[in-house]
């Protein structure tokens, strides 16, 4: 299109005045675009948008990077481009609420280091358009994270700010209570409200409660949630859950390790204080990771009525090749555990958006950023493993066909957006 106009410009420029030419161009452009209301329409997909209680075959139209319309039939002529996604599932772009993506050059460290991974390496191919970093940075190094990683990423990266000043630096400082500065953490969150969605406490080995209390205090002062990771060996789980507020998030919910009481007791029942916390509105995140997910916890929990609210992967160097693998693998694992597709999608979209108080994400409501994932659900004999290296069989698996971020296609598995090659 642009070349047609530039040719036109060159040819006509000799004969016409500048103003006349510009007017002509404007008129032509508008006339040309008038018939094409949308940039892209995804046609005939099964739209599952739990936020809007939608599950039916519909078309989704995108304009200027935003959702323009979701309707039963949008004329394909109304779009510059359309893709037929018949037989596929169209959902809001997934939100992975627990990741470690503050990647950098520091060997064997999470903060600015090699133990973190790049979101773009794993997210587009898994249908994930937004990740939330789980406190890899703190108030002292969030700006390094933002400049080096967040601003360069195609994946939308949000963050829980660690109460520890340098986040998961792995330095002795990480344990120093003086570094856990509520004022400074709150100030950083207020400086970057678009990116910092809450605060995190984790990896504190002392028995003092002030780090925990300061994190909650930061949450209170900004009206933001707190993410509680484990590796808090001296804090009893009951006490953690008691201190947590409605809307605070506990992750690694189904971990079975010695340093934190598991949610299931020796008789296969949920511990009473876990039931109470669930009732109070504490949100349970999976936080799968390399070691944070055990069938021996997750399956009885599901049976006893404790569903995870969100499906955080805990993406990092040591989970990528383990039982976790990817967001879609974790979601398929929950399908294999008997959860419905709609529920799985709800947890991976709107639930995560609500937990971080970002209502413009995780739904296909018109006006929202056009973050969309298109999946195929294929059937066969599959298996899923946990941290103990044990296997659960399943019959269905989600595969990411297309991922769209702010209206741009950032993943296209089978070239659905490509023209046929004519030899």
């Amino acid at each position, binding site marked *: 299109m642009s070349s047609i106009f530039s040719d036109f410009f060159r040819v006509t420029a000799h004969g016409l005045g500048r103003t006349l030419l510009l007017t002509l161009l404007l008129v032509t452009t508008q006339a040309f675009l008038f018939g094409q209301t949308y940039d892209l329409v995804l046609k005939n997909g099964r739209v599952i948008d739990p936020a809007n209680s939608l599950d039916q075959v519909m078309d989704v139209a995108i304009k200027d990077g935003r959702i323009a319309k979701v309707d039963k039939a949008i004329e394909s002529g109304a779009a510059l481009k359309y893709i037929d996604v018949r037989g596929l599932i169209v959902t809001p772009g997934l939100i992975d609420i627990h990741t470690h993506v503050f990647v950098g050059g520091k060997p064997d460290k999470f903060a600015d280091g090699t133990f973190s991974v790049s979101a773009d390496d794993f997210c587009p191919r898994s249908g994930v358009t937004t990740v939330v970093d789980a406190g890899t940075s703190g108030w002292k190094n969030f700006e390094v994270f933002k400049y080096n990683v967040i601003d*360069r990423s195609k994946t939308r990266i949000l963050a829980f700010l660690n109460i520890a000043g340098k986040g998961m630096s792995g330095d002795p400082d990480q344990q120093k209570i003086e570094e856990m500065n509520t004022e400074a953490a709150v100030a950083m969150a207020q400086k970057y409200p678009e990116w910092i969605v809450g605060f995190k406490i984790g990896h504190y080995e002392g028995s003092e409660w002030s780090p925990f209390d300061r994190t909650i205090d930061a949450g209170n002062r900004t009206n933001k949630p707190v993410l509680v990771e484990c590796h808090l060996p001296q804090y009893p789980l009951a006490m953690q859950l008691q201190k947590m507020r409605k809307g605070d998030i506990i992750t690694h919910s189904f971990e079975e390790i010695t340093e934190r009481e598991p949610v299931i007791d020796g008789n296969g029942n949920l511990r009473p204080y876990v039931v109470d916390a669930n009732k109070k509105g504490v949100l349970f995140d999976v936080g799968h990771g390399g070691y944070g997910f055990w069938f021996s916890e997750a399956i009885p929990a599901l049976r006893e009525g404790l569903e995870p609210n969100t499906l955080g992967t805990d993406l990092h160097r040591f989970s990528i*090749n383990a039982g976790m693998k990817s967001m879609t693998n974790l979601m398929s694992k929950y399908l294999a555990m008997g959860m419905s597709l709609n529920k799985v999608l709800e947890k991976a979209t709107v639930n995560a958006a609500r937990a971080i108080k970002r209502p413009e994400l995780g739904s296909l409501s018109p006006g929202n950023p056009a973050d969309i994932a298109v999946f195929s659900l294929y059937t066969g004999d599959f298996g899923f493993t946990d941290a103990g290296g044990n296997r659960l069989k399943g019959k269905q698996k989600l595969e990411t066909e297309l991922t769209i971020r702010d209206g741009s296609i950032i993943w296209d598995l089978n070239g659905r957006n490509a023209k046929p090659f004519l030899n």
Partner: protein
Amino acid sequence: MKNIILFILLFSFNALLAQEYDLLLKGGHLIDPKNQLDTKMDVAVTSGKVAAVAASISPQKAKQVVDVTGLYVVPGLIDMHVHAFQGNTPDAYIADGFTSLPPDGFTFRAGVTTVVDAGSSGWQNFRQFKKQTIDKSQTRVLALINIVGKGMVSRYEEQNTDDMNPVMTAHMIKRLFPETIVGIKASHYWGDFTAVDRAVEAGNLAGVPVMVDFGEHQPPLSIESLFMEHLRPGDIYTHTFSYGPAFRETVVDESLKVKPFVFAAQKRGIVFDVGHGGGAFSWRQALPALQQGFRPNVISTDLHADSMNGGMKDMCNVLSKFMAMGMSLQEVITCSTVNPAATIRRPDLGHLSIGAEADITVLNLRKGDFGYTDVRRTLHKGAQKLETEITIRAGKVVWDLNGLSAPGWETELKKK
């Protein structure tokens, strides 16, 4: 009673003795091109090495048995062209930069156990690359070092002929790291044949092959001259199917005919590498070439941040793409195991001979409607796609897509 206990003890001892293998892959179809095997065979592993390959190995002889019936068992794939020197030097793109990728997230899930970094580092920063990436990766990372001492810092630094030192490059290889550095890379040079000639000079001094990316000359330099006069048999031409005639002479001409000297060059021993990348693979080169009988010697990805989410995706996708163009499974496995191993002169890799390090890949060949795209985002369809079920590196399972090597989850509850 005593006798019974003794009997049980003796029996268990015998049972232990009998379990001579750590791991047995049972019931798979083995494709091991170097050993000319393409048939149903069991493969056993002990102490990280291939211990036995036979039509039937008794499950009683192994501590762990994995049923791979219906799947293909092949040597661990070798991706001969990647960029893995990841770091965060400001303004650097591939050498210690963000465009390079840490390999482990892309290799095992795509069946790759060995990668060759294609010139991201040079003699001046190879040791940094080794320390921060090679020594920290589970994937076996080998390297071609750049003839430019600082490697791929930026296109600008890559033009510095004062930093193309054949003697220092050869010393780095021969004296310091003969196990890890397998060759030399010349690329991105805008001038004459200087970069190539210095790389070949270093190659002669160190006794290693040279890989050339010849894509940035304006106007393009003659690839016939490159193949026939400047490179030696055994040297590698990468980005073979790239189409950008303003910068790189193409192997297929505008009337879609393979240039005759290209066949002659392959016959002479020039190794043609795919190096798919973000911009270096076009159907209009590859399809006519394959139809006319010109096939790549080596299939590789040119993995980096700008290729990972485009038409390339991963090694299995690139292999599947060549199958969609008519190559057989056996041929693409040849081009990703024994051929790259021979090219980088590592006869220890790319096969499953007894005693070889147990780098093994188990593949599932899916049937369906699949699509593959080139850098112009045009589509070519295929009915098959390779998927990596299991990857084993030095005898250890490092990727297991469907938990085929795992026990049922209920065993966890029994332990309580």
